[in-house]
């Protein structure tokens, strides 16, 4: 067949080929974010996939080279915006590692509460979105109510809901209020709180034949391939490797806690779903343990919410208004003139969808010399074409949501 279309610019051989080219994205209702995948379809089967990155690249690493450390926290909010507190804490921990700041135990436990809440809010979105993409909408609505409660807890502590900018280098900006603890109690309540809702969600999904047939064998990856790509987090654990940063290099006193690592076998969507569900239960148990530990502090210790590092942690406002020394520190920190030692650090935390690393080089100036974010999504997305090749088009959509690809983190 040779039809000449001089007025249309078509690639060589595009009229003769037997496959259809489909642009899945950059703005497609099924992709939950700005992803582009150019698919070669034979009927509904994907023969070849090419993924594109960079649609919402905002040059965070470059911007960070012109910002003092405390101003980089709002940038980390915008990496994985489903669990921005983990990114914030990871960044604070990196700065503390460079500056040699040691945080008190109570701060560590409070951070763990916030980080695990963030992990739950991320996993519940991911799992319920897998449900939505496979045609089950109501589970999403019910779980969403508890994400709202988690966001209210953030709001009580830092004042914001999605892009939290929570905490400071050395601790929190303020102690948890009574209302925050009350809301946490409400969240943890066995009968009316999140555990009951999660149990109901599992009843709807886990052993449902339609859901199982839809997700079993969909987008699988072997443990070896996953490790070759550099997978971490729930996606690697679903493939059967029990790697968890919280256990292998504990940060923020995670070594004081008792929890298990759920692993899957085949690394398909169903395994990822089960692993995330089980991780939510583990997170709930960690939060309960941390809550009990925080409540154990008595007297003056129970009021500690930041490390005693006047050179890096902003003095209290009432001291700034009245005391000269506090005012000097205040200006020094805000102007970005706090002493930064020369050196390089790598620090990673178990982000909600994998190992989130910060590689920071400092030449002693007021800003980082170089900062690199190790974003797990970027790595998962490299494997995405391989995962969906040979599958159906609708499986590609579920695979994407069950890998928990977040566009903000992918492009940074």
């Amino acid at each position: 067949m040779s039809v000449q279309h001089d007025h249309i610019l078509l690639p060589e051989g595009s009229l003769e080929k037997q496959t259809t080219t489909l642009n899945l994205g950059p703005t497609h209702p099924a992709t939950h974010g700005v992803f582009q995948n150019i698919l070669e379809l034979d009927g509904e089967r994907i023969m070849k996939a090419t993924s594109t990155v960079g649609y919402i690249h905002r040059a965070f690493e470059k911007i960070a080279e012109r910002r003092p450390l405390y101003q980089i926290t709002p940038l980390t909010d915008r990496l994985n915006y489903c669990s921005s507190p983990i990114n914030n804490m990871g960044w604070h921990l990196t700065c503390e590692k460079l500056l040699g700041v040691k945080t008190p135990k109570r701060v560590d436990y409070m951070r763990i509460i916030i980080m695990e809440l963030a992990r739950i809010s991320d996993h519940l979105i991911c799992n319920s979105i897998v449900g939505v993409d496979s045609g089950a909408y109501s589970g999403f609505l019910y779980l969403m109510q508890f994400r709202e409660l988690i966001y209210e807890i953030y709001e009580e502590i830092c004042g914001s809901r999605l892009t939290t900018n929570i905490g400071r280098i050395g601790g929190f900006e303020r102690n948890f209020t009574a209302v925050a603890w009350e809301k946490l109690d409400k969240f943890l309540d066995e009968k009316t709180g999140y555990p009951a809702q999660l149990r109901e969600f599992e009843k709807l999904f886990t052993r449902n034949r339609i859901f199982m047939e839809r997700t079993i064998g969909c987008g699988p990856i072997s443990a070896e391939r996953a490790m070759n790509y550099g997978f971490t987090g729930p996606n690697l654990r679903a493939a059967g490797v029990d790697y968890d940063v919280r256990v292998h290099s504990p940060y923020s006193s995670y070594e004081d806690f008792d929890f298990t690592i759920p692993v899957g076998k085949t690394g398909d969507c169903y395994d990822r779903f089960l692993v995330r569900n089980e991780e939510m239960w583990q997170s709930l148990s960690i939060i309960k343990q941390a809550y009990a530990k925080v409540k154990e502090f008595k007297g003056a210790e129970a009021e500690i919410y930041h490390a005693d590092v006047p050179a890096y942690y902003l003095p209290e406002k009432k001291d700034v208004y009245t005391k000269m020394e506090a005012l000097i520190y205040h200006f020094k920190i805000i102007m970005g003139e706090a002493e930064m030692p020369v050196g390089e650090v790598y620090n990673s935390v178990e982000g909600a969808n994998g190992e989130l690393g910060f590689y920071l080089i400092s030449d002693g100036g007021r800003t980082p010399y170089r900062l690199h974010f190790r974003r797990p999504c970027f790595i998962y997305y490299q494997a995405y074409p391989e995962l969906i090749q040979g599958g159906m088009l609708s499986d590609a959509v579920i695979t994407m949501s069950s890998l928990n690809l977040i566009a903000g983190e992918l492009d940074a």
Partner: protein
Amino acid sequence: MQALTNRVKEVDRKPLSFMEKMYLPAILKGMFITFSHIFKKKPTINYPEKKRPFSPVFRGMQILNRDEEGRENCTACGLCAVACPAEAITMEAAERQPGEEHLYREEKYAAKYEINMLRCIFCGLCEEACPKDAIYLSESFAPADYQRKQFVYNKSELLIPNPKEDPEAYKKALGNRAKPTTNA
């Protein structure tokens, strides 16, 4: 795959039982769960009519504060502009003239003060940076306007109503967040 830790817990992937293989019970179970939610308390709020209570530290739009005598607190030191990661704040300082003591608290004040609300990311660093208790993040949010230039808020739009002239409006703008300053 050899286990790396002793904390492994395999997820349950047992095959479907006979009961689970039949579609009908699963569908009935799902229908029952969704049906039972009809009788539960509604979690939604009719937004523009009703509003959710905010936390006292909610980070909304900025206000420029006055002291209890109605004088502007801001001295145009520029710390908020330095701290702003979005580079949304600009200001110009001026010196207080004799006879303006009832307008400005300190000898220096901001002649021009602008916040570009399209750039602002509501991180709250300006409030944290302010050594004079002058800028606050209030409870109002979601401004609407027709043109982009109208989102560059100038000083008259940001200033809180004068507590001496209009104490009610002042109280309303302050919300449950900030307490009036007690020091100079």
